[in-house]
């Protein structure tokens, strides 16, 4: 029987990993991911999880030890955040290019400088091009569930691509919720031990992580790219099986809420979605037709889902907890690209928000919706704006 427990996002994720039974864990502590590695160390130390925990001396070593382990056909987990993810940079395309299904938890945190341990998405957005699948979860329950789903997805023979599961630092990693814990037996049936031919073995020795010259390189990349085309189907299949077995599912690449006849839609990523839904309910109660679209996966990107938004939508706003300095938020770039692929002309506006843990209030969100309800102004006005910005508060240099 499944049971319920109060757990933080980190704890829920760690518990999901325990249920997934990784054979090898290689991770290095960093706030706000630390609780995950502490819990996993406890599970291993207490014999509750039969796993080889490698106490690496850095994140670079964490990801490269994970590569070595996954290259042996072992189910492998790592976790990090921000500076640690950046330190792993070299290893990320290494793992994805060699098609080893490592699963990583990333606690989204701002990147220095200025130093900040608080939440935004600048860390993971830097690695949209790394060849990893990226999924962002909203609450502790989804965190636990996605820990399990991520292994199933990464290790699927049609996928064989590493998965990064992103949890908003503190907002989600350190917030307690009632979480339903699935039965180990059910999880075992959903996620059997990882089996693959794509590994080094004494019976069938091979060379891996090879070099490829200009004469073949593009073909490798072409295949890696186009394999993503069928990931959405696999994600759908896995999620519906999960729903059947555990009574919970999350849709596929994205999830629309009250978008049916909406005039304005906000795109969200991660834990902010809950507040946005509440604002949508409030506005709907006032007869204002708005909706929210939670982008769960950013790679593969929910292009089709975005193009399926109803004709009623007259303006789209994007809440971007990241910024490509000098240009715009990265989610905004991707959303506009999706719209242009489908030749849909809908005015869009980028709302840079929550950088370094800056609060986003329901009132902020309400104001954004009200602004979006004037599509002509959206069409004409500034495309990139900052939410809850207080330039007047800057410290006076002269004391």
């Amino acid at each position, binding site marked *: 029987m499944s049971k319920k427990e109060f757990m933080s996002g980190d704890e829920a994720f760690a518990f999901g990993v325990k249920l997934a039974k990784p054979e090898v864990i290689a991770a290095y502590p960093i706030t706000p991911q630390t609780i995950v590695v502490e819990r996993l160390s406890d599970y291993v130390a207490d014999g509750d999880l039969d796993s080889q925990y490698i106490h690496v001396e850095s994140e670079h070593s964490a990801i490269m030890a994970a590569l070595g382990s*996954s290259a042996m056909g072992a189910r492998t987990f790592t976790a990090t955040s921000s500076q640690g993810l950046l330190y792993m940079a070299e290893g990320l395309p290494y793992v994805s290019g060699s098609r080893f299904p490592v699963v990583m938890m990333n606690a989204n945190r701002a990147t220095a400088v200025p130093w900040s341990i608080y939440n935004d998405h600048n860390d993971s957005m830097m690695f949209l091009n790394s060849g990893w699948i990226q999924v962002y979860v909203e609450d502790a329950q989804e965190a636990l569930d996605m820990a399990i789903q991520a292994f199933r997805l990464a290790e699927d023979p049609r996928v064989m691509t590493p998965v990064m599961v992103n949890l908003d630092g503190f907002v989600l990693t350190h917030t307690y919720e009632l979480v339903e814990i699935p039965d180990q037996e059910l999880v075992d049936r959903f996620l059997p031990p990882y089996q693959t031919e794509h590994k*080094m073995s004494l019976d069938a020795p091979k060379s891996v*992580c090879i*070099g490829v010259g200009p004469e073949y390189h593009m073909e490798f990349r072409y295949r890696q790219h186009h394999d993503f085309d069928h990931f959405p189907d696999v994600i759908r299949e896995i999620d519906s099986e999960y729903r059947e077995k555990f009574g919970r599912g999350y849709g596929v690449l994205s999830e629309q809420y009250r978008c049916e006849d909406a005039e304005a839609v906000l795109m969200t990523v991660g834990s902010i979605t809950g507040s946005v839904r509440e604002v949508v309910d409030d506005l709907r109660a006032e007869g204002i037709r708005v909706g929210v679209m939670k982008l769960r996966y950013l790679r593969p990107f929910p292009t089709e889902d975005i193009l399926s938004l109803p004709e009623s939508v007259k303006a789209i706003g994007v809440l971007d907890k990241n910024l490509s300095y000098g240009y715009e938020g990265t989610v905004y770039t991707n959303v506009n690209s999706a719209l242009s692929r489908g030749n849909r002309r809908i005015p869009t506006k980028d709302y840079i928000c929550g950088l370094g843990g800056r609060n986003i209030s329901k009132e902020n969100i309400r104001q954004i919706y009200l602004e979006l309800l004037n599509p002509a102004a959206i069409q004409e006005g500034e495309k990139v704006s900052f939410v809850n910005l207080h330039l007047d508060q800057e410290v006076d240099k002269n004391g």
Partner: protein
Amino acid sequence: MAENKKMTLNNLPEEELFFGHKACPGCGGSLTLRLVMKVLGPNTFVVVPANCMSAVSFYYPAMNFGCNALASAFPCTAATMSGIEAAARAKKLEDYTVVGFAGDGGTADIGLQALSGAIDRNDRIIYICYDNEAYMNTGVQESGLTPFGAKTTTSPAGKVQHGKLTHKKNLFDIITAHGIPYAATASVGYPQDLINKVAKAKACQGTSFLHIMAPCPTGWSVPIDSTVSVAKEAVECGLWYLAEYENGEYKLNKDPKEFTPVGDYIRKQGRFKHLNEDEIREIERQRDATWVRIHEKW
């Protein structure tokens, strides 16, 4: 059992596990790998980070290892091996070896952190540093193991700077300071000694480390048929030493009563051509200091 018989140059297995690669003629690094792999045998998982040896052997579609091999990133030979070893443990594999071949740069510079971590965990891996005394793969730049005075493309023999400014890092001491179960220095000039040490490393239950002098004719500007003799001369003139560290004890495998002149060794190599007598004396002074320390401490 062949396993228990002492391996010698005469009874080494015929089977080649590193062959068909594109290393330069006379390459000391590839000679090292060839010999070591014969001792370790086919049940081996090899890690080679970015360096000359991976560049000449992992180039699709020609793969040049006759066993499992992974071309890893430059800084993390040891960490990649740790991952392989952990997975092998998880899968309860038996009768296998995990070995890594990193260059001097991949070991003493960019790879030192990962190596230190692996020794600290005492993972059962064999870490081999083949030392050609510069970053050869990228076209001969100085490393922490490039000797004093040697000319590289980043320590040129210029008008005011005469080659590498500082002495070779004392890598062996750095490694033994960890209290590693087994560490040794060796040289392609002394293949039997090298084979013995590889066999010991293979039997070691924790981390083992071999630092092997492996001349590079291309980077050192020496004739391609002189790799072995140059390697021997380095030991004879006291600029390299053959030693072991086992169970906390040091041992010299060769303790020359008298050194051949450093000048003879230096003058044969294009990379030292620019050095003056004072600079050669400085190299001798440093050598003597090293040996005083060795004799006092060991």
